[in-house]
């Protein structure tokens, strides 16, 4: 099972990074979502995988999984939403202002831009 989860994390990371490297905003946003999934599952997996041991205290529980990564990931999921929402709105505003949803300047920056003295 560990191998399956690790493979899933790898695939999510790969798709996320590939999409991040695209030149338009929407794929980049999706890429960020994929990367968030990958990171969240990765963090969660740091508590090792356990089945049927939820960290809810009860007298007849057989044992508990590590609750700390869960608490960290829970906040991470919510924060990822805040980040995604902000990026989406940035992309939207950028598109509405410029009429282009590319994530790159039309002309690359050049080295001879003069600094002021």
């Amino acid at each position, binding site marked *: *099972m560990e*191998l*399956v*989860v*690790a*493979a*899933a*994390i*790898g695939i*999510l*990371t*790969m*798709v*996320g*990074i*590939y*999409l*991040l*490297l*695209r*030149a*338009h905003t929407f*794929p980049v946003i*999706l890429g960020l979502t*994929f990367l968030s*999934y990958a990171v969240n599952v990765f963090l*969660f997996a*740091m508590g*090792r995988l356990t*089945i*049927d041991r939820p*960290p*809810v205290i009860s007298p007849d529980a057989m044992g*508990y*999984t590590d609750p*700390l990564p869960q*608490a960290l990931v*829970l906040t991470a*999921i*919510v*924060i990822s*939403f*805040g980040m*995604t*929402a902000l990026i989406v*709105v940035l992309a*939207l*505003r950028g*598109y*509405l*202002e410029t*009429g282009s*949803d590319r994530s*790159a*300047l039309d002309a*690359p*920056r*050049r080295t001879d831009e003069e*600094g002021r*003295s």
Partner: protein
Amino acid sequence: MTLLLVVLIPFMGALLPPLVIRSGRNTCAVATGGVTLLALALLMSHAPAVFSGEVPKAGVDWVPAMGLSLSVFADGLGFFFAAMILVIGLLVIVYARFYLSREDPMGRFFAYLLLFQGSMVGVVLSDNVILLLVFWEMTSLTSFLLIGFWTKRADARQGARMALVITGGGGLALIAGLLLLAQAAGSYQLTEILSRGEMVRASPLYLPALLLVLAGAFTKSAQFPFHFWLPHAMAAPTPVSAYLHSATMVKAGVFLLARLWPVLAGTEAWFLIIAPAGLVTMLIGAAIALFRNDLKGLLAYSTVSHLGLMTMLLGLGTPMAAVAAVFHVINHATFKAALFMSAGIVDHEAGTRDIRRLGGLMVLMPVTGTLALLAAASMAGVPLFNGFLSKEMMLEEAAHTSYLGLDLLFPVLATVAAVFSVAYSARFAIGTFLGPVRGDYPHHPHDPPLGMWLPVAVLVVPVIAIGLFPGPVAGPLVALTAAAVIGGPLPDYHLALWHGITPALVMSLVAFAGAAALILAFRRADALRARLPRIDAKAMFEASTGMFVVGCRRSLVALHDGALARYMGVTVATLIAVGGYGFWSATHGAGTRPPLPVTATALTAFLALVLASGGVLAFHGERLTALILTGVVGVVVALAFLQFSAPDLALTQISVDVVTTILMLLALNLLPKATPREQSLAVRWRDGTVAGLAGLGVAGLAYAVMTRNGTSISEYYLTQSKPGGGGTNVVNVILVDFRGYDTFAEIIVLGIAALAIYALLDPALKGAAVRRIKAMLPRTESRDAHPLLLVVATRVLLPLSLVVGAYIFLRGHNEPGGGFIAGLVVAIALIMQYIASGYGWAAERMKVDAQSMIGAGVAIAGLTGIAAFAFGRPFLTSTFGYLHSPVVGTFELASAMAFDLGVFLTVVGVMLLSLAQLSRVAHRVDPSPESREPMDVQLERTVPRTAGGES
């Protein structure tokens, strides 16, 4: 504690001048002087203790384990320097009051001056080396502000920048040097370090530490080859030159050498590096000074020369030379500050500082002239003035110094430097004040007001007093300071006018004779100098900084050319390289943790994830399809959380996914629906390789961790959750109790993100953006009536969803649930109303606005935390108790519940604000009419519209 106040008062007082400048320039100067006087008085209250041999200390520990503390001490050296800084500061403040013109912003000037003063006092009194470094950098920064005070002048700006680059750069080296020193000594407290000289000198870190410390000291004290910034700093107002560039800041380097003398001095390296550097600086500075026509330029190079003299003396490493260095610090501060002020007066009154246009001022301004001549005589080393005494001691030391077997090197070069030194002093005095009165001064020179020459007079008093009676006047102070520098018994010395016919006296006589010849032959010497190749340090500096800037820009553009993909790619590739190096430079064994068996369900879910991810990769150009497939991946992730004992995460993930999908759909409504494929196959393969390698690395890392057992701190949370936090859902107890601080910060971040979204979409939306949205409107579906079924279903479900939300919230402390999840559920229920019935309808019925909800949420969470203070407990300490109610029975009430309520409100507010804003964008540009009926399910209006707008 009063000692700490000596350092802090100037900083606090710096607020004063800009405030009181409204009451006039005199009030402003008095306030500034009052601040300095207060600090000086507090310092002087320690004088009896210091002179009786005690070392007053004060301070507050900050992080003792890391050697960080706000601690100061005043031994003889620190006390002497602090007193000098404050006394001369006081005189400079009086002088500046009359020097600055009405147009100059005096409040700002005095504020800078006090900030500098505080930093400088901090440098000399710091006990902790880190603290010293902080103050050291602050002197660089404040001197930048002071040198560039006349911001409109290009030379002031350039001079300020050059000083900052050189002294700031040296400061960086000093940071490394002092850290190494602290490492070698095993302490960050100077008082400790000073007692461990043997240990430091035996350490292998000694040489690197010494070199780095010297880089800091030499740049600050303008030693060759870093001397060139000081003359350019003369673009500063003259009070600044008198204060920073003669008496205080440039002496910081000398101070540092003296401070660390007991630890670092006495080795071969110390002597071989510092002594010749000082000697060369002394010689070069004096030679250049002679040919300067600008009075301040002449004095600047003279200062460079005298700093070299002090550095050389400290570099000799003998106790006797250290005494001479300390004595010269006192003498130089008095006569040089007086001379700078006199030069300022001449500039002020005659309208020029060019020595070729001056002369004969003695007749026109006798007071200034007399004072300046006295100070200049001291600078030349004329007997009966204090400069003579310390210079004589220097020559005596040089006469006995042999460098690498060269017996004559030091005596001869020191004598040559003395020749130049006498000559430039004479040129300064003769060229400015003596000779015939001229008729072509730019102004009509006369003596300035009392306030301007009085500080000069005050400085000239010790010049003569020490010169005549060195023992009684300066003896105790020199002994005190020198004892602190040497850190051991003082050598046998006498501060006296007459020592008999000594080598030093002979060298002095040679210097006077040589200088007389040089002055007589000045024109020929000057012509000779004009034929020598000139090294323009400023041009070289500008060229090298220019090259540096171009290099930086090139590498920056190479990494970041304005395309997101470029630097993301660079970042990921670097991470892969670093990770790969780490992986291959170590050995790895297989994990020992027994793996879980793979189930068919898990494999099916994995297959779904692979297919959905592959689909996204293949069809990401079709944005809607890609979004739906992403949703599938989200569901699989949620299921995985459920499978692996994390019900809270599963609930959170699934509700966040719903909100995120709605958000993206709303955005996609206004964004292009497809992504054009404009990249070549090669680029896609390259990115694919990078992404694939990164995925492989992350997967490998995750697998490696999962197959190994580890230790966790969670045992504490599991055992304490019920007795300590009063809840059985450990994840929720961690969030609202054990790590409530994190959660508190997190909801603040969420709130800020939502407000940023609001700011991006609401008030600033105009111009091109509005035109684009209008152009889009005809093809949006927003004019259609809302589907009947959806409207009815969402409205019926709303109360139900709210009850579910309340239930999830209330049980959260003991069962999966809690503020985050409940907030998401309620937010989804509310957002559904916007989707089903339209923005206008829903917004009108929303009685609470989202911003207030966020504010209330953060406030409630914060107040819950603060409430703990009322019981004398730290922030966010929780409590709980059991209530008995007739209907529900016994139930638990925890203060963490109130905190969770804050979380809940913030989450609802954030979700509503961001989604409602997004759905409002189109509405705001073109508000379509909304139905006023309680239920806008009007068949006669809905039907034709739906039919007409069928898509």
